[in-house]
């Protein structure tokens, strides 16, 4: 059975930073993908410590590759397991190799589902499989809906319209050649293709930059010197990352850490306290702090409890970047009123920190998901990339040989990919578009 399945791939470890990250691949193409990533032929059931190569042939990590030949594997199919360092950019690149080689990103619960269907899990576990599929689909669905709000959704809609537009003309020229339809000139159609292609490319670029889709959010801790910014960083990361002293201006450089709130990666940047200083090192630190602030998705502006945030400093903050006010050193003051839009914490005692984490999570816009909302969105990028390559081939066919049916085929495949993001658009929907636009019927 295993030679008949499509190959699925997924990052098996929680998103965000961990010591080890695992990418799992199951299906007929596993061995082929293994040879792309490790540049060697793996033997079944032997762990191999090897360099990992990305799609461009560069070594990105050193890790352990394990290959299991079906049916002697977890899913009953050929399985490849790649253990690398737990950095999601790295894991994403491994996933990229797999999807470029024809694998698709697995649906939630799909590995377990295959294991069950291939008699690898017994009846007692069947109920759990159903639950898993159900639970993870609900979460994936809600994650998909969430990420489809706003700008990304608007862009996808534009692409969908442009794609359907091209298809309407190409398909009607094929199915209704005898009708008196005002067919587009090839040059006009080429223009529409060009527009479609650039829309997809632009959205992909933006997605790949991770601004919109991949990297979680970046939070910059800013404020006057000695308000406890570094202590807050240490408290949030749970590590002794930053040097903390009572001396104002201890932090000179920019410190970056990544934390993981319910699987959602949050980049936290600690900066030098904002003040005018004669010390050239500190001056440089303040300049860098401002750089970071300008790139932030959100600013945590730390103020000592009982003090007002200094207006001149607030004026220097860039427009358009949301600010959360954090009142630190709650342990030193009593009777401080919890103000609206302000979070009262003590970096020293940990008071209020869980509320702060909750606040950050909400700002990032994600609820807890089993697989990490990032996975749902990884699927979108995967689908968009594949759609892009089909649109390009379709365009090429149109230019080279005006082969209508091959262009049409490529656009159909592109639409299949977009369907994964937007929901189904059937051939009947397409015919509906054609009939509403053209008077068909002799």
């Amino acid at each position, binding site marked *: 059975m295993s030679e*008949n399945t499509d190959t699925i791939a997924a990052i098996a470890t929680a998103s965000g930073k961990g010591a080890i990250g695992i990418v799992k691949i199951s299906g007929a193409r596993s061995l082929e993908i293994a040879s792309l990533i490790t540049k060697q032929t793996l033997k079944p059931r032997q762990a191999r410590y090897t360099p990992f190569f990305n799609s461009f042939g560069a070594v990105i990590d050193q890790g352990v590759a394990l290959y299991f030949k079906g049916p002697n594997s977890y899913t009953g199919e050929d399985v490849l397991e790649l253990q690398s360092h737990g950095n999601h950019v790295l894991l994403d690149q491994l996933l990229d190799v797999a999807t470029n080689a024809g694998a698709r990103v697995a*649906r939630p*619960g799909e590995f377990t*589902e295959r294991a*069950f269907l291939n008699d690898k899990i017994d009846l007692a576990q069947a109920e759990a499989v159903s639950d898993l599929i159900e639970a993870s689909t609900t979460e994936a669905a809600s994650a998909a809906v969430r990420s489809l709000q706003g700008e990304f959704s608007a862009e996808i809609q534009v692409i969908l319209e442009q794609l359907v537009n091209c298809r309407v003309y190409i398909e009607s020229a094929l*199915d209704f050649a005898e009708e008196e339809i005002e067919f587009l000139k090839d040059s006009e159609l080429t223009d529409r293709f060009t527009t479609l292609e650039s829309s997809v490319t632009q959205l992909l670029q933006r997605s790949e930059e991770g601004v919109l889709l991949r990297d979680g959010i970046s939070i910059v801790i800013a404020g006057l010197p000695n308000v406890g910014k570094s202590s807050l960083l240490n408290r949030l990361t749970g590590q002794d990352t930053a040097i903390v002293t009572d001396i104002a201006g201890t932090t000179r450089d920019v410190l970056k850490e990544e934390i993981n709130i319910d699987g959602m990666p949050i980049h936290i940047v600690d900066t030098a306290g904002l003040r005018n200083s004669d010390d050239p090192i500190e001056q440089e630190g303040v300049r860098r702090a401002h750089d970071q602030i300008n790139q932030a998705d959100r600013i945590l502006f730390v103020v000592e409890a009982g003090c007002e945030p200094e207006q001149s400093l607030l004026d220097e903050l860039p427009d358009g970047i949301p600010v959360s006010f954090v009142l630190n050193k709650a342990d030193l003051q009593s009777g401080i009123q919890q103000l609206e839009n302000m979070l009262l914490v003590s970096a020293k005692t940990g008071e209020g920190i869980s509320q702060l984490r909750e606040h950050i999570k909400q700002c990032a816009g994600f609820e807890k998901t089993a697989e990490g909302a990032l996975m749902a969105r990884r699927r979108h990028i995967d689908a968009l990339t594949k759609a892009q390559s089909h649109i390009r081939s379709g365009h090429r066919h149109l230019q080279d040989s005006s082969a209508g049916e091959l262009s049409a085929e490529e656009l159909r495949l592109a639409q299949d990919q977009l369907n994964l993001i937007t929901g189904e658009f059937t051939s009947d929907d397409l015919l509906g578009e054609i009939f509403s636009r053209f008077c068909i019927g002799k």
Partner: protein
Amino acid sequence: MSDQTKYDVIVVGGGHAGTEAALASSRAGARTLLLTHNIETIGQMSCNPAIGGIGKGHLVKEIDALGGIMAKAADAAGIHIRTLNARKGPAVRATRSQADRALYRAAIRTAVENQQGLHIFQQSVDDLIVDEATNRCSGVVTESGLRFNAVSVVLTVGTFLGGKIHIGDVQQAGGRAGDAPSNALAKRLRALPFRVARLKTGTPPRIDGKTIDYSQLEAQPGDTPRPVFSYLGSEADHPEQVHCHITHTNEKTHEIINANLGKSAMYSGNIEGVGPRYCPSIEDKVVRFADKTSHQIFIEPEGLNTHEVYPNGISTSLPFSVQLDYVHSIKGFENAHITRAGYAIEYDFFDPRDLHASLETKFIDGLYFAGQINGTTGYEEAGAQGLVAGINAARAVKGLEAWSPRRNEAYIGVLIDDLITRGTLEPYRMFTSRAEYRLLLREDNADLRLTEKGRELGLVNDNRWQQFNNKVEAIERNRESIAKWFVHAASDDARKIEQAFDVHVQKDQQVLDLLRRPEIDCTGLQKIFPDRFPVNNKAALLQLETQIRYQGYIERQQEEIEKQSRYSESRIPQSFDYANVSGLSSEVQQKLSEQRPDTVGQASRIPGVTPAAVSLLLVSLKKQQLLDRRVGQIA
């Protein structure tokens, strides 16, 4: 002397579905009775006198590959034949033929009369014999009370169920102009648990060609050489050829129609049925596409021995007086005499989601539906269903498993799968865009796709089988021969190719790669290098060329099919309880319980059934299997 009231299979209706069903059933070895209300109208083309077209021609070729009659009849009656999309790729090329109605009818009648094991009887059917206890259909009762018994009954009664004809505000009962409807049968069927709805279709007024001024009109000749439908046919089968003509409506025409809209049955609210979006009446066109000042009309000849023509493009339900006015406003029709008024017809159809892929109904065993009764339009769509229903009715008699082609095997498969999984809201017509495996499902390879299966089903005779094998051998021998052929740049071969095709052979390469270039074709190569092609067979050369050109796509589609087919053939027991599938949304649960798909593949194509729902269904089916096995072990 065998009993004239007992048969294996009874087919009710002598239209395109009925005749294919009766022929297929008797070819497959079942003793078959064709019951029709009028033997003279067997094989009648009720709508326009044409067979084929884009998507439809594909169906005709598939029917032919499975031993059906439609292609042969279309060749025998073809008076104007063209290949549509000739300049586009082979996958979307299609044959279309104007047919002489009388010749077409005669060809079908001859085939039916000469088919071994097939009897004809003239009588309207009023009732079905259904055993209430077993829910099995075992025969029919005619209007005069004659009872005919059979193991399987195929209903192909077209637009005759509750048929109502509209011309302006005048309505009359009818299954086709001049024929009575089957109201008793319609009433009987409405009492069974099938879902019923109304559809509408229309025809234009017919015109006496003697009164048309052809000198003003653009003539459209057929193709030379003439395309042939049947894989066993040739140009020699064709009768004398004639031209079609083209004219257009104009602003005056549209004015007349607009001024009289209220009198159209469509717009006065008299019609409840839904008409097709792709075949609107002229009043629909004028209203919906108000900015278009002209619509095309194809003047299709009705036959060699008649002057009557079918002006395709102006079907209507306007009153006769308005039809006269707007017809006279059209160029060339100024003095036209209308021989038959245009009309709209409304009829019952049964929701095809109540059918198995075999076209047997889900509620009553032994009862099959085919053709317009299932919500389709078109002779080709009807014939295709008739063929499948006929085969399966006959197979059921012998206790054999039903057969229906898959979506990747035939347009017939796309047609039936669309109908039974998605149903239809308008008369369903085939288009190539409905087929996701369009590049595989071509007119040129319908024989390669289906002849073997047809042979296995008993539908393909020795002659067809022999010709098929010859063609396959020709393709393969040529392929083997040229597969080893390497052309070096600047060699003699390269120069000859460059000269013949006006191309440049830049580098050493295989001829197989050269053939992927659109300028180079097998037929042309064969002319220059006859020794390279062991078998000079035109169809085989074309076939080889197409296979080479589409190779990459064909491989990809094959891969897609393999992925799809993994679980899609898993059968779902009819008794399966969807309420027990944990995690299914109630909406999906309801849809599946209502429709009771036969396979997981069918379930997955029902609108609204998500991939996750399919996963849950698979897991649940597997669980049931394991449980059953365990119970078996304990017992």
